[in-house]
């Protein structure tokens, strides 16, 4: 290879490509318009030259012979795998015509816009939806069970999102003088080295381990991290809530919380009336006529009388209030009744009281002694990171579980502190991913927003983010109630192989719809069932930008592959066709507007020149202790962006949504405890969703360098269990429960609990027959056939992907 011919382009990652949510700096080596090699950028503070196998396999991914390279239109029956190559203009014309027909006949809400996991997709697909006029932007995983539950809980508890602080806001990283190495890191349900989740580089924690951070790992599997942990809690999948309550129990009973912090920054003093069926925060409007329902009440021990917390002033209605912390009082209401009220702290303390470590051992199977030790270790470490993963989202009780865990960092003061859980905001306030209705670039009318599927059933969806509810949407395809769903735009999503629980139902829905478009990079099982398939670009083939969480950075088009286009271009072209007032012609123009609106102080080209920028110290998007400095609230006062301005241990949002405002634990609906009879028939707990460094969800199965790392759709099973079932390592076995069954290759490993089996998700076999009904082997290997939809918490969030029952048995003959 002659070196002179090679150009090296500095860029950064997002999808499509490695798939993950990482922000790696990349050096793309280009020759003759082709990427011949990708390397990590040693100058980028995020990854410092390091990159994962998926990034390193980019050349095999980009130039894979199966890569979709031009638009194609179905010419056979759906799923028959007969296609005709068409031009982009023909494709755009066809889409415009068909989607306008749907709009004319049924209204724009009858068209839904489906994405997979959020990466460089979500923002642009919602832009298309809103330009077209539909409120139905959907993420297809049942119960929106991917980060949304945790994000919602963080938002309702302290008004902002938190992530572990691995010094990612600092150019000099761990060497920044403001940073502190955490004394301990609690890894709650994530095998971090296998994947870079949600704006976090997996191996930062390895950096911190080298610098002395001790680990606690909570995982049903003995991961590498678990084997390196000071304490490993091998809990029963789905019982995280009970464990979190036990942590709280230990921390409260042993007075390991930071009492001054709790008294200063949380709503622990606020009174809750307990006279009704449900406890309710006592509000100024309860005490006196004309009192605000937004103001809360404490018991002032100085005056031995109630005092009012003025939420908009972030102050009491008088001086020298000494609010009671852990007590109860009878309070006289404006209607003359006297009601029993308890402080939030007492309510909270009473709530966690039953969850002793011994009780939690019963529920979680982890030893009480270890649970207590882990809770103590977390509370005593200064600072301490608590890092949590998807298992908190993909259970039915996601919201109360996330809330209990969130409270841990609130009770110990590990919030927005160096080496704790810092508040993560859009860098330089540049929002590249719309988290709330119409945020970012476009808006819909309130009438149209009211048609957003599922908001009528789950009020939380109205107030947090802009998702339609996937389970109700799918059901509505069949029921057409309250209105029909007739078309689906599917963008880099693969519900038949990955996000869709009960995939047969998703297939039936796709077969019933009038029109489906699939934007993707390979012919997936889902794309196979579409009417039109559009070829999407990798991150090396498009211009984009990213600000989640840091740095704010540019993704630069390095090469073109075939006729592939970026999601953004495709979505923008269609948005322009559907909305004559759509303001931009080219993505770069839109990027400039986004940067300008955020007051980022640079154009897109300037961002490209820098490649990445970190928010400067003092900016609201840079840590630390912003709640002390008045950087979190619009009014500039210290405190949090919550209704009360406090960290809400008892949540006013949850109260508003008629959900339990305090954390609680509930058994998974199918479990040894909930369904003991079923457990006799299905004596193993099936858990899914394990990550592999070799694949991102359903991607990468066709990339040889990656597939060889993880060649089979496996089922992890303990040697003892395998022995009892006469199953050997490498044997193909059946997994079955009352919902369905699939085949997996047994991976016999002591890393898994004997009563638990782990089936990684997202499996399809690109090397097998693609046409329907084969669909690349999904009916053989898709574990979602055992997991039903429509099992959420009262919030509408959560699903059963992490904990359900099953049996495993040998195949008879072939």
């Amino acid at each position, binding site marked *: 290879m002659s*070196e002179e011919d090679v150009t090296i382009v500095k860029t950064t990652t997002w999808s499509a490509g490695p798939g993950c949510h990482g922000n790696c700096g990349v050096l793309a080596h280009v020759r003759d318009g082709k990427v011949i*090699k*990708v*390397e*990590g950028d*040693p100058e980028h503070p995020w990854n*410092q*030259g*390091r*990159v*994962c*196998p998926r990034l*390193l*396999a980019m*050349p*095999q991914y980009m130039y894979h012979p199966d890569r979709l390279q031009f638009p194609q239109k179905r010419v056979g029956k759906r799923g028959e795998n007969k296609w005709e190559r068409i031009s982009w203009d023909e494709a755009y014309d066809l889409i415009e015509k068909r989607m306008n027909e749907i709009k004319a006949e049924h209204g724009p809400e009858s068209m839904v816009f489906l994405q997979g996991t959020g990466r460089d997709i979500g923002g642009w697909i919602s832009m298309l939806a809103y330009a077209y006029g539909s409120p139905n932007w959907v993420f297809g995983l049942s119960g929106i069970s991917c980060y949304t539950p945790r994000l919602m809980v963080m938002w309702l508890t302290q008004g902002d999102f938190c992530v572990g602080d691995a010094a990612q806001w600092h150019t000099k990283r761990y060497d920044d003088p403001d940073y502190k190495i955490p004394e301990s890191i609690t890894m709650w349900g994530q095998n971090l*080295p*296998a994947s870079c989740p949600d704006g976090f580089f*997996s*191996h930062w924690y*390895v*950096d911190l*381990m*080298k610098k002395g951070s001790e680990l606690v790992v909570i995982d049903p599997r*003995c*991961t*590498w*991290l*678990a*084997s390196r942990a000071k304490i490993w809690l091998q809990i029963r999948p789905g019982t995280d809530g009970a464990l979190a309550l036990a942590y709280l129990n230990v921390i409260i009973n042993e007075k390991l919380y930071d009492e001054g912090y709790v008294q200063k920054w949380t709503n622990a003093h606020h009174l809750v009336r307990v006279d009704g069926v449900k406890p309710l925060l006592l509000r100024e409007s309860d005490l006196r006529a004309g009192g605000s329902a937004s103001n809360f009440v404490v018991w002032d021990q100085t005056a031995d009388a109630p005092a009012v917390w003025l939420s908009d002033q972030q102050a009491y209605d008088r001086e020298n209030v000494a609010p009671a912390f852990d007590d109860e009082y009878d309070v006289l209401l404006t209607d003359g009744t006297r009601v029993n009220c308890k402080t939030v702290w007492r309510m909270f303390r009473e709530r966690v009281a039953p969850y002793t470590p011994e009780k939690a051992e019963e529920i979680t199977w982890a030893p009480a002694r270890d649970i207590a030790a882990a809770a103590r270790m977390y509370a005593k470490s200064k600072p301490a990171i608590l890092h949590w993963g998807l298992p908190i989202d993909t259970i039915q009780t996601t919201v109360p579980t996330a809330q209990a865990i969130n409270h841990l960092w609130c009770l110990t003061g590990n919030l927005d502190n160096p080496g704790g859980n810092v508040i993560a905001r859009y860098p330089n306030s540049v929002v590249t991913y719309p988290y709330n209705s119409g945020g970012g670039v476009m808006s819909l009318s309130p009438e149209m927003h009211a048609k957003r599927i599922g908001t009528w059933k789950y009020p939380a969806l109205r107030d947090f983010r802009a998702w339609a509810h996937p389970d109700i949407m799918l059901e509505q395809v069949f029921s057409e109630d309250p209105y029909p769903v007739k078309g689906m735009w599917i963008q880099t999503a693969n519900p038949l192989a990955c996000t869709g629980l009960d995939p047969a139902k998703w297939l039936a829905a796709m077969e019933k719809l009038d029109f489906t478009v699939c934007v993707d990079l390979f012919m997936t099982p889902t794309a196979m069932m579409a009417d039109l398939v559009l070829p999407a670009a990798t991150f090396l083939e498009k211009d984009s930008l990213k600000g989640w969480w840091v740095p704010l950075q540019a993704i630069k088009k390095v090469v073109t592959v075939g006729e592939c286009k970026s999601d953004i271009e495709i979505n923008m072209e269609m948005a322009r066709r559907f909305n004559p007032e759509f303001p931009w012609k080219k993505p770069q123009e839109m990027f400039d507007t986004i940067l300008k609106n955020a007051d980022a102080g640079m154009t897109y080209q300037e961002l490209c020149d820098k490649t990445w920028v970190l928010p400067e110290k003092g900016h609201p998007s840079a840590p630390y202790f912003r709640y002390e400095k008045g950087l979190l609230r619009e009014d500039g006062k210290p405190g949090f962006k919550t209704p009360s301005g406090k960290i809400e241990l008892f949540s006013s949002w949850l109260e508003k949504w008629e959900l339990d405002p305090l954390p609680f634990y509930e058994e998974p609906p199918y479990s040894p405890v909930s369904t003991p009879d079923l457990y006799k028939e299905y004596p193993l707990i099936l858990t899914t969703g394990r990550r592999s*460094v*070799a694949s991102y969800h359903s991607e990468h199965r066709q990339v*040889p*360098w*990656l*597939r*060889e*790392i993880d060649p089979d759709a496996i089922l992890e099973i303990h040697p003892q269990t395998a022995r009892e079932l006469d199953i050997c390592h490498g044997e193909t076995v059946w997994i079955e429960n009352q919902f369905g069954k699939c085949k997996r290759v047994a991976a016999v*490993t*002591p*890393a898994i609990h004997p009563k638990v089996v782990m089936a990684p998700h997202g499996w399809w076999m690109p090397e097998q027959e693609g046409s329907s009904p084969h669909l690349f082997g999904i009916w053989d290997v898709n574990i979602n056939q055992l997991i039903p939809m429509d099992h959420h918490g009262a919030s509408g969030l959560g699903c059963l992907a992490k904990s359900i029952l099953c049996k495993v048995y040998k195949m008879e003959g072939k």
Partner: protein
Amino acid sequence: MSENGILVDYTYCTGCSACEVACKQEYGRKAGAVGGVKVMELMHELPGGKLDITYYPVFTKVCSLCAPRVKKGLKPACVIHCMANVLTYGPAEELASISFKKRKSVLWKGGE
């Protein structure tokens, strides 16, 4: 001339396979055939019953310690891409003097 080597602080190898794929990309090696480095997994019970997982990146016959890259002044592909930063390239004798506190490390050396 002092021989060069790769020092592996294997205590922190997470088994991520980045070294393997970096090598395959660098030399265009076929999937299935061995590359210059292979991460071996050892899962075993420690005295006391705790399960331990340790990954050992081992270098194979086809590894040249990235002689073609080193000639250009670059570090070996596996070294720059190691996600856990456990690989260090340099003169073997210098590397041998690097001490990781209270843990073992392993130094791979090239011959001649």
